């Protein structure tokens, strides 16, 4: 099955072993077999309903696989940070940008310790890295969509995770913000972190993401972006998803 790539010789931080995922026993991703190598920058693409978000949720541990498993090598669940697509953030809550961003240090300061001066400097650095300097004291409700996304990226920066999962991070934000946030992602890549991002826009993937994993409820292709993002693969992905949508249970194979 369209499985034309098995990592590039480096160690795999994530190994999807015959992974089947779904809700209420209705599978959304079937028999996924793939490895994500350490330090890779991978875009997860595919049509709507292909199971991309479901896959990220499973990596965070919020969703248990129906079958198969995910092997995580070299770090624990605490080393994973995750930016969900529809974040449940209550923007009307009276909290300032700096307080929201500083929560990225939760694993270090926990529920009860003080922030401290050195950590305060790190918070300032993260805010400046996403271009929000000067907005520290603003309530989050006063931010635009793009500025709010910048704040969430600053929080991700502070989480200092080895594996960063991003679900559609560029939806509904302007080009300038996107360019700045892509730079943040490239910085993570250069620091040797593994990044897995669900993306819609093919040109963004081509321009910035070396690796691509194409899903259409099962694996379509995985490997260097140029080889994966072909017209033929994209056509096949759409067909596979449409076929699945009509008969979500069966999809060609038996599911345990």
């Amino acid at each position: 099955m369209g499985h034309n790539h098995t990592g590039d010789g480096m160690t795999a931080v994530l190994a999807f072993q015959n992974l089947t995922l779904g809700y209420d026993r209705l599978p959304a991703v079937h028999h996924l077999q793939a490895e994500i190598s350490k330090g890779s920058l991978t875009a997860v693409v595919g049509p709507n309903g292909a199971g991309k978000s479901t896959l990220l949720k499973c990596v965070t541990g919020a969703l248990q696989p129906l079958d198969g498993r995910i092997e995580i090598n070299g770090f624990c669940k605490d080393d994973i940070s995750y930016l969900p697509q529809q974040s449940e953030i209550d923007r009307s809550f009276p909290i300032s940008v700096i307080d929201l961003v500083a929560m990225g240090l939760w694993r270090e300061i926990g529920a009860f310790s003080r922030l401290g001066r050195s950590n305060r400097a790190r918070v300032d650095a993260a805010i400046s890295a996403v271009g929000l300097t000067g907005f520290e004291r603003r309530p989050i409700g006063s931010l635009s969509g793009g500025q709010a996304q910048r704040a969430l990226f600053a929080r991700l920066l502070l989480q200092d995770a080895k594996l960063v999962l991003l679900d559609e991070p560029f939806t509904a934000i302007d080009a300038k913000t996107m360019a700045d946030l892509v730079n943040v992602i490239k910085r993570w890549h250069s620091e040797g972190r593994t990044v897995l991002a669900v993306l819609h826009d093919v040109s963004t993937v081509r321009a910035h993401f070396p690796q691509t994993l194409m899903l259409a409820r099962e694996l379509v292709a995985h490997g260097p972006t140029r080889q994966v993002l072909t017209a033929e693969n994209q056509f096949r992905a759409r067909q596979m998803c449409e076929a699945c949508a009509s008969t979500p249970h069966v999809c060609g194979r038996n599911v345990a």
Partner: protein
Amino acid sequence: MIWDAFFAPFADFGFMRRALLGCIAVSVGATPIGVFLMLRRMSLTGDAMAHAVLPGAAIGYLVSGLSLGAMTIGGLIAGMVVALASGFVARATILREDASLAAFYIISLALGVLIVSTRGSNVDLMHILFGTVLALDDAALILLCSFASLSVIVLSFFFRPLVLECVDPQFLKSVSKLSAATHFTFLALVVMNLVAGFHALGTLMAVGIMILPAAAARFWSDVTGGLIISAALIAIMSSLIGLLLSFHYSLPSGPAIILVAGIVYGLSILLGPAGGIMAQTLSRQNH
């Protein structure tokens, strides 16, 4: 004149001083909880929990008459049972928390009224429903003050997880195991303050001193700390004026205090600098 109107009642009468102290304790303990209820869009949860406390207090009354301890323990147990049961149903079934809470509290309220009315007199029912702020004895005052202190201490301890649970519960779940603990600690604080409140203001009015000052404070501040402080000040001020009105015009004190808080709420809607009607009109004209 001013002395007679404002100071003499407290200087001359011990029960007025006790009532004021009791109200201040309830104000300091309950209003921060009310602020968080409001910020979490759970204001009506407070109301529901207040009703849920009733059968516990009634069973306490059944067992040992108008006893402070029995009614307090009964109220705490009933409130916690309803909070936990509705939380459990919401987490384990398809029913949402608001619906499951509504179901449990209305059962609880019916049970409470039934118990009180089969065994007690109307006076007792009035006592439980409307409180006895003008007849607080030493034990009751100590109880109110301890509950308020405990509530403030626990809240300050859980402040960060609680704020995060309000702003971004998904994130809190991803970084910490405190999410469920935070939610239930918060519900426990709600119940505790309502039980303290019902000794002073009765089960029906206890939720008023929790919610009304918080709602009014929303028009005076944009930050959580400011909301809590202004809500507490509004509650204390309303208690003071309400007690004086009830003294001078022989009004029932619980409703008098809550109505004053209601008037402050109305004025805040009109005059509050943070999103009040006048502030909004002015800022529109300036643009």
